[in-house]
């Protein structure tokens, strides 16, 4: 059985897409069969980290949700198309796929207007797991709570809740953690991202764990290097010795150990 990992945050811009791409890449590099599905249909972004644009991505999740193609048709083979970013070189030949959402403005407004069938999304994820014989399915989500983020939480074996050390994030994270407990998620981890380097990460960890009574898988520093890369590559593969990457690998290990 595949392990389903969803990455969620109550507020936007916490770093979900970058974390999803990096965690999934680390696990793919370790030899597991991994796919990412971008369920952030309203504002997709994770394809950028894999060098995809509208032209290159081919079929999208939107078409699957309208029953115009199968989910396997949408899965983009990352291992076969790593592009020219230095970090992604280590992904060559890996069993690693991305199911992208469309960035065509017409497609996005169509989804916003008509909504989509959440039941069909669930069916697609199940088929993807079987069709690609996945070990891990990562779900990148839209921030906040709606039927499809709740569904991704409900079917997850591992839920990663990303937060910044910011009061607004603390309150929102409390809501998400409550919901995850209501949905009985077997493995819940908090990921703190964009921590100021002038504070001790261990203290941040203790503080956050104390508040939410849930384990913190890693505390990732705020870093200009990351912002500077502008999601153009997989940071932890490009700069494996960077403190951000070292922390990230702790979270990847926590995921591998959890399920």
């Amino acid at each position, binding site marked *: 059985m595949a392990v389903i990992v969803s990455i969620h945050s109550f507020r936007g811009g916490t770093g979900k897409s970058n974390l999803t791409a990096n965690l999934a890449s680390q696990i793919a590099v370790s030899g597991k069969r991994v796919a990412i599905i971008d369920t952030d249909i309203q504002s997709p972004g994770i394809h950028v980290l894999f060098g995809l644009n509208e032209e290159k991505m081919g079929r999208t999740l939107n078409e699957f949700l309208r029953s115009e193609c199968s989910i396997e048709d949408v899965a983009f083979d990352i291992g076969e198309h790593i592009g020219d970013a230095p970090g992604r070189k280590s992904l060559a030949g890996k069993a690693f796929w991305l199911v992208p959402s469309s960035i065509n403005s017409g497609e996005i407004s169509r989804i916003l207007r008509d909504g989509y069938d959440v039941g069909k999304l669930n069916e697609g994820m199940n088929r993807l797991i079987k069709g690609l014989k996945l070990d891990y399915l990562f779900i990148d989500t839209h921030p906040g709570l709606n039927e499809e983020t709740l569904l991704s939480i*409900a*079917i997850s074996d591992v839920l990663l809740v990303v937060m910044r050390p910011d009061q607004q994030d603390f309150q929102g994270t409390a809501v998400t953690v409550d919901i995850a407990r209501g949905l009985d998620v077997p493995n819940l981890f908090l990921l703190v991202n964009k921590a100021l380097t002038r504070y001790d990460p261990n203290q941040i960890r203790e503080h956050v764990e104390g508040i939410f009574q849930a384990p913190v898988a890693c505390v990732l520093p705020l870093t200009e290097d990351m912002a500077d890369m502008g999601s153009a590559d997989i940071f932890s593969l490009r700069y494996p010795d960077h403190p951000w990457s070292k922390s990230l690998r702790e979270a990847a290990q926590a995921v591998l150990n959890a399920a």
Partner: protein
Amino acid sequence: MDNEAFNTLKRDVESMTEVEGLTMTDLLTFPDDLRLLLNWMMRENGVQIEEMASYLAQEVNEARMLLEKMIEKGLIEEIKKKEEEQYQVLVKSSRNYRVPKKIWQVIE
């Protein structure tokens, strides 16, 4: 689960209004034992009647009665997997994608 809890669970299912599939927001409002059962079934992604009986710590016949009620209410569907009868949560085909107000009552 003990017989008393199981009877409560049966009554909870009986008193439900029929639905065409489960929404996650509804799931969050269900009584604990029913919610836990459905959560478990969702994550298993298809269970056999024997597995359900052992989850409930009940005889297969008892479990089947509950299951049939859940199918009647539109929460569960039967699927065939490798020639075996399996049962799965029926996720509502909702096109409505905003969160209903109810969710805020749940988490308050």
